[in-house]
């Protein structure tokens, strides 16, 4: 896709009218553009510009949520075409808010952005005990696990979850952490693989970690 086309996707992702993204994606399907191109260059490319604007504080959470809503609709339209071509997801990502914590707005934003970025996301929800993380990792074999916490007290649970994942699996998934009280320093202390300051950086981090695994 040309830069102008990607910019057009970006503008439509920023729109309030859902019909615009529906019309745009359908138009590209009718033009026989490969669905993987529509996804990676159009939708993800457009979301990428939005992510950079969010990082630069040119837009805020509501604008990102609006775009994520449009992105979700775009992917819904595209999904049958992706399934026909058996387009694989970029990676598998399990996410949950650690036990004792019910805050999940940050987690929901990461879930939306990771889905938008092409990951298959398994969202375990809130107040997730470590046993459930272990069970899901065993069953789903994700590439990356994301842990979220909003309270200083539940950061300690995060440490425990990281420890037990590493202890249980000989080839554990990459583990990234995030949430308001979490810091880079804390993530290093608990030996997580990375710290996502916000949803946009979480996606960038996930891509970097998969790249280091030679997966993308």
């Amino acid at each position, binding site marked *: 896709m040309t830069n102008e086309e990607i910019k057009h996707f970006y503008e439509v992702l920023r729109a309030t009218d859902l019909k615009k993204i529906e019309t745009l994606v359908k138009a590209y399907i009718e033009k026989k553009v490969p669905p993987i191109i529509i996804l990676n260059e159009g939708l993800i490319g457009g979301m990428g510009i939005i992510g950079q604007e969010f990082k630069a*504080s040119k837009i*805020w959470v509501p604008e990102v949520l609006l775009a994520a809503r449009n992105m979700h609709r775009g992917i819904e339209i595209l999904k049958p075409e992706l399934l026909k071509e058996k387009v694989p997801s970029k990676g598998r990502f399990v996410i949950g808010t650690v036990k004792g914590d019910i805050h999940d707005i940050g987690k*929901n934003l990461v879930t939306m952005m990771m889905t938008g970025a092409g990951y298959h996301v398994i969202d375990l929800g809130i107040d997730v005990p470590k046993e459930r993380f272990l069970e899901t990792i065993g069953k789903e074999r994700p590439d990356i696990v994301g842990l979220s916490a909003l309270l200083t007290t539940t950061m300690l649970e995060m440490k425990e979850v990281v420890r037990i994942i590493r202890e249980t699996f000989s080839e554990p998934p990459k583990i990234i952490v995030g949430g*308001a009280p979490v810091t880079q320093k804390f993530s290093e202390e608990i030996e997580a693989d990375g710290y996502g300051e916000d949803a946009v950086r979480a996606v960038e981090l996930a891509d970097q970690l998969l790249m280091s695994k030679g997966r993308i």
Partner: protein
Amino acid sequence: MIMKPNFERLKKAFSHEEPDRLPLAEALVAYEIQSQFLGKTVTDSDVKSQVEFWGQAGYDFIPITVGMMSPGEITKESSIFGVVQKVLKKDKDTEEVVPWDIEEKGVISNPEEYERFPWDEAARLNFNKFYEVQPFLPKGMKIIACSGKIFTLAWMLMGFQNFCLSLYLQEELIASVFQKVGEIQIQGAQQLLKIPNIGGLWVVDDLSYGSGPMVDPKFLRKYVFPWYEELASICNQRGLIFLLHSDGNIWPMMDDFISIGFDAIHPIDPTCMDINEVKEKVGKKLGILGNIHTDLLATGTPEEVCELTKKRIREIGPGGGYALGSGNSVPNWAQFENYQAMRETVLKYGSYPIKV
């Protein structure tokens, strides 16, 4: 040491003069901490013990909430909690607390739910505590009324995700919710003009994340700040000091806070704001409260707390304009020894002129 509250200390500090010592300030100290300080159990209904705590601990005021919601998490003590439970339980036969989905849809997700919401009941605010406290107030101590939240309550009623999308997809609903919430909170503040011993109004309303404002500041300027201006006007009528609490990075709105007329801002979130930079850039126009990291109060040592407190006294104290306290609140998971270290360091080293 016998403490003598003196609210003039705080007023002088926020007039950018040096009082006798650096004031202490908090919007919220958990009852568990208050209980440990006094050596007896302090509860929400025990107003006498609460006054005893705030006075003996070295504060010049007692914070009391006016409005629909107390600072901190949603609690059963907040008047809005009961109203929301009635809405959530409407078609349910249960005594159990029904979870309030503040993250996604809230209780007002569309115009119909807005119309059905019992606003009249939500507007019935309780001022009992302001009157109950009067006989116990020692000479020199005032009440600072913590104003119920406006921005926060609007998005909590609507659910944050729904609120965010509604800014673009249902802006009329946004306007209506803010109008109702703002009116109720203003009504609460106006009642204060009739109550003796009110020294200030503290708007407690988180506007930002660590990365910056939760929403485009243009929406705050349209829907929130006009209410703050009205509160500022109420404060001016009575000569009350006017304070703002917001977590997060609030730099993009700093000029707004100055023109609205806040006397001081709290807590200068230590996770994302540099208090020295704030002092340097706006310290002559805006006072500062707070900044000792709550995380340090929870996980640090008394020595670490003491050192940081001394640093703040030394670097931010001179010239007035500063009242020291936590970087958010003193929760029940703070270590009591650390809270004491912060408080006692101020009392020991905070006399003017600062020499630490």
